[in-house]
């Protein structure tokens, strides 16, 4: 009995230890970015584009990257919403056969698992094919491919979670399925949809590998869809890679900006979800 108790203690200790170690690592990551980042953060940095000699430590800011990242991920989110919403409806039993649904879910899961660098490479192939250069348009399209599976699978789960009695009530009123989904059921699913959209947006803003090939990088703000754009992850990467201390400091500040953006998106997602969930019918 005593030995069993001791084993119990040891295992518990190990578990607490591993959880603690992980927590510590993550905390050090967050604190590191926050403290090193605060050091280099100035208002000018957020509002200006890089001037000549920016990568040698002269003045300028990362406005090009912030604007670029926002444009890319907002565009990609809207695009994949335009395809994803009908897709989520189509994956309900009212619209397609069980086999088709299973096959499509399988494909979406495969696409979800595919590394974003592969999407980047694929986007590059397509760009060569149609003669498009690195541009906002190409980057947005590729990023939309990356976040589409995430968004659709989440939204589709939300629709499937609607209680059956609720659906039956709607059918009994004599609505067609499209009227039911568009006018009634989508209201019930709204909090989940918002969550899916924001999570996809957060994923998009942090993704670097897919836009490396396709969006390019530039110090200027884009003036059309066919201009290359900068993005925050790449901007951080380039600034950190230089040996000059001032530039690196600004790299950490850019990292802080990205971290704040990502956390903000998640917090807003959870907050909205809680707020809108109050009106749901259960």
């Amino acid at each position: 009995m005593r030995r069993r108790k001791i084993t119990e203690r040891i295992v518990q200790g190990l578990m607490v230890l591993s959880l603690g170690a992980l927590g510590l690592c993550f905390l050090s990551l967050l604190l590191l970015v926050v403290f090193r980042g605060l050091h280099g953060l100035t208002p000018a940095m957020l509002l200006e584009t890089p001037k000549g000699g920016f990568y040698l430590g002269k003045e300028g800011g990362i406005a090009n990257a912030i604007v670029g990242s926002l444009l890319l991920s907002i565009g990609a989110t809207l695009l994949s919403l335009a395809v994803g919403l009908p897709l989520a409806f189509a994956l309900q039993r009212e619209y397609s056969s069980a086999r088709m649904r299973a096959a499509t879910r399988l494909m979406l899961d495969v696409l979800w698992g595919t590394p974003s660098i592969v999407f980047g490479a694929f986007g590059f192939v397509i760009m060569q094919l149609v003669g498009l250069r690195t541009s906002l348009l190409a980057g947005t399209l590729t990023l939309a491919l990356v976040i589409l599976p995430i968004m659709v699978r989440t939204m589709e789960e939300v629709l499937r979670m609607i209680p059956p009695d609720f659906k039956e009530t709607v059918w009994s009123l004599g609505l067609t399925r499209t009227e039911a989904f568009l006018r009634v059921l989508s209201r019930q699913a709204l909090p989940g949809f918002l969550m899916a959209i924001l999570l996809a947006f957060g994923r998009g803003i942090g993704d670097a590998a897919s836009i490396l090939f396709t969006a390019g990088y530039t110090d200027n703000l884009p003036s059309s869809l066919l201009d290359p754009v900068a993005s925050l992850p790449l901007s951080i990467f380039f600034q950190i890679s230089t040996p000059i201390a001032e530039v690196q400091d600004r790299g950490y500040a850019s990292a802080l900006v990205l971290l704040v953006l990502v956390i903000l998106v998640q917090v807003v997602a959870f907050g909205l979800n809680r707020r809108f969930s109050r009106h749901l019918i259960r």
Partner: protein
Amino acid sequence: MSQEESLRLGQVPAIEGTGQAEVGSPAWSATPSFRARVAWDRWCAVFFRGTLGLVHLLALGLLLGLLWKSFPLLGQLSFGELFFSTAWHPLKGQYGFLAFIVGTLGVTLIAMGIAAPLSLLAAIYLSEYAGKRTRSVAIPFIQLLAGIPSVLFGLWGMLALVPGVRLLGTALGFRTTGYCLLSGGLVLSLMVCPIVISVAWEILQRVPMAAREAALSLGLTRWETTRHVLLKLARRGLVVSLVLGCSRALGETMAVLMVVGNVARLPESLFSPVYPLPSLIANNYGEVMSIPRFDSALMLAALILMCVVTAFNLGARALLQQLERGWRS
């Protein structure tokens, strides 16, 4: 507009005699005929189903596009020259992927070796031992971490890990810059943990409470219950969590790229630099045009990556389906 019809459309019914129906929108636009509604429903259904086809087209296009681009290289070099040779000289037309494949596998293995025990223990703790308070803090925190961009992990690796690994390496008598296999594995292990923990936790939550109660009532301790009952019931599910973590690790690009050193040679020790496949693709896209067959080689690398990761994901899915069938019966 009759009262039932307006209720059906979710509008406030017009009250008889107030003339509201005429003042507002004309009645015919608010209530389309039954036939028009059914036609609208049919068209929407066609459109919705069309997007289903789009997904399949996209997946197929992805595979075919990469195959088509890597075909010239596949036709030119033999299987052995491609996958079992370390000779990587794009200018001479030699493309041996062995060093890159070993690099990818090495980094992933180290990452999983560290992440698997840590995150399984953490998941068991959260599911079986932790109180409500710990759980309500830890679960959202883990979800938050799963969403942190990989560049930030790479940053942390460069700043916090690489100097430590360099010290450790020199202390053990290796010549190293700190940018090496071990650093890559460590950074990756941290990135994989949130995924493995959240999947494993969900699986453990789905084990029926009755199984635990039966074991505890026999006088087993918590850990004995976990080991003999939970781990047996949830074994496959935990494997799934590890496989999913693995597939994430295989394709991770930026964070690894920043700390592994990127030298295309077979690693001699944990402290040698390596060059995983995703880094190869990410680092070289600029030179694609100038060297013949180089773009083919990069697309082949992407194709390999995609096939391996997809195989892992499909395996995890099959295991999960088996598991669900087992629990239902």
